[in-house]
């Protein structure tokens, strides 16, 4: 743990020293993209050989790796024995596939175009639904947050619709939209729209007023203010909304696919149940989890890339 932290510091020193040269600024983590690369060659070559670094890393990371593996191993072992002996104590393991069966089916599905197509269809629905929700949620959030007229006209409608879970819209969506596909995308959109909208509004409302006044004194027009001050100032909150919205989008998508879908990973999982392909249910669940994780990771990466000034504060987060 400690060694990992000191390695990190080594990497950041060169960036900080540029600043320290003339008048000491606070030595906050320097977000210079080239700092890390430069560090590898220059910093403390005498004491830190690559081998030592790896050894140090292993020593610090090993306990965590071991406990993680132990935890997961126990879980799989429980699963294995519960299915092997068909445990039945209120919770029934009689029909549950064993880890081995799941692995076998997974090996087969790796070669199935149909399976990849299901993944592709789900991802496409997420991209469209979440994409539209991002554009609309951020745009409307900026307007509602910044202009009283927009808030008066739009907010009551959204406040009325917001408590209705996206899934409750399924029958309505099927009637509203011309195809099953569009109604599933609509459900996905609905799920992510409200978190994005509300967090954007919150972000706009928490913009420091002195920044707006400073921008006005520097000649910013109304639109310039919105695009060059309000939007970037609200960006951290917007990304909170995007992270939550992505999670809800997946929840809504899977439910919609199970109810009314053709294709998609949620449909695949439900269909596996109907076809008594129980091992495929587990595979569907795992894939849904992994895809959701990847999407959330993508949002986080995008956030880091778009908000380089936040580098210091986000790195200080929980460990």
């Amino acid at each position, binding site marked *: 743990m400690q060694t990992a932290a000191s390695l990190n510091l080594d990497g950041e020193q060169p960036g900080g020293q540029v600043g320290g040269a003339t008048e000491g600024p606070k030595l906050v983590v320097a977000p210079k993209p080239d700092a890390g690369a430069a560090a590898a060659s220059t910093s403390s070559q005498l004491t830190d050989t690559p081998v030592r670094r790896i050894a140090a890393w292993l020593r610090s990371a090993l306990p965590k790796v071991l406990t993680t593996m132990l935890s997961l191993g126990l879980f799989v072992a429980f699963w294995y024995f519960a299915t092997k002996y068909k445990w039945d104590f209120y919770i029934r393991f009689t029909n549950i596939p064993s880890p081995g069966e799941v692995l076998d089916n997974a090996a087969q599905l790796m070669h199935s175009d149909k399976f990849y197509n299901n993944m592709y269809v789900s991802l496409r629905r997420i991209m469209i639904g979440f994409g539209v929700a991002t554009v609309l949620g951020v745009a409307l959030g900026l307007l509602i947050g910044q202009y009283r007229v927009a808030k008066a006209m739009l907010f009551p409608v959204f406040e009325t619709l917001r408590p209705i879970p996206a899934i409750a819209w399924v029958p309505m969506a099927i009637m509203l939209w011309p195809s099953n596909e569009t109604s599933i995308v609509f459900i996905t959109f609905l799920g992510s729209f409200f978190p994005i909208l509300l967090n954007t509004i919150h972000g706009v409302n928490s913009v420091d007023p002195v920044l707006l*006044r*400073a921008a006005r004194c520097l*000649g910013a027009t109304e639109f310039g203010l919105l695009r060059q001050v309000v939007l970037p*100032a609200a960006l951290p909150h917007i990304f909170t909304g995007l992270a939550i919205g992505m999670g809800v989008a997946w929840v809504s998508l899977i439910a919609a696919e199970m109810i009314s879908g053709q294709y998609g990973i949620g449909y695949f999982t439900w269909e596996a149940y109907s076809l008594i392909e129980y091992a495929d249910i587990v595979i569907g669940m795992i894939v849904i989890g992994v895809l959701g994780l990847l999407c959330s990771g993508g949002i986080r990466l995008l956030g880091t890339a778009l908000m380089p000034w936040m580098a210091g504060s986000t790195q200080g987060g929980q460990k």
Partner: protein
Amino acid sequence: MMSQSADQAKATGHIVVDHLRVRFGHNAAMVEAVSDVSMEVKPGEFVSIIGPSGCGKSTLLNVVAGFVKPSAGRVTMDGKHTDRPSADRGMVFQQYSLFPWLTVRKNVEFGLKQKGLDANHREEAARTLLGLAGLLAFENHYPDQLSGGMKQRVGIVRALATSPRVLLMDEPFGALDAQTRVVMQQILTNMWQRFRISVLFITHDIDESIFLSDRIYVMTARPGRIKAEIPISLVRPRTPDMALSPEYLRIKQQLRDLITEESLKAMGGELKDSGLAGFGMEVGPQGVAELI
């Protein structure tokens, strides 16, 4: 380009405040913040306003900046109403007001970008100004990585970048420690002499106002009025040793008396409001002094 805009600035930046009155709220809840203030900043002049807190200094500055509408009277710069904010009146705030998502250089470029200047010219102008302020080494830093004094220096540079005719400063060094503040005063004086623009500077620090100003207006407790106008004829460049000269000490004594009188009045009002007067005590300026 630099000297051209400096010459232009020299001839303008004439602020005239004419019988200004500002009230907030209505009826019973009405507060008169500024009451019948007349004053001016001549082209190229450095003018300070000093007065007890809550006397309407910021309100007065905000009317000049174009953020607050006068209830009566008028404020003009070079004959034009200051009815909305504009880049020809640069402003420096007490709170740090740099855009945290922009690097130091991009902060300085902000005003030039609003003017439609292309990226190359923006960068060139920003780097020149940052160089003058000794900040070039930090052009790619984000504001969070700077000390308080450096942030305010960048704030001044950013306000100067659009070649405003006047710089409006609302207690810009109020949050800084004493040493940094003295350095900042020196830097501000240098920048002001180089750009020769008008400055309207608000402070509650007597030494600061004497060190910086050509003229000082002392305001009364709320509702703010001009109580006195003190010209400072100390030669420039001014040095820290001047603080021991008889002339300096005379001005300082005079200002301190004026301000103490007003501060006591302001406190007397507060004590009255808080119900002390209800005990049959006559709480005037003298009364408060005795109480303390």
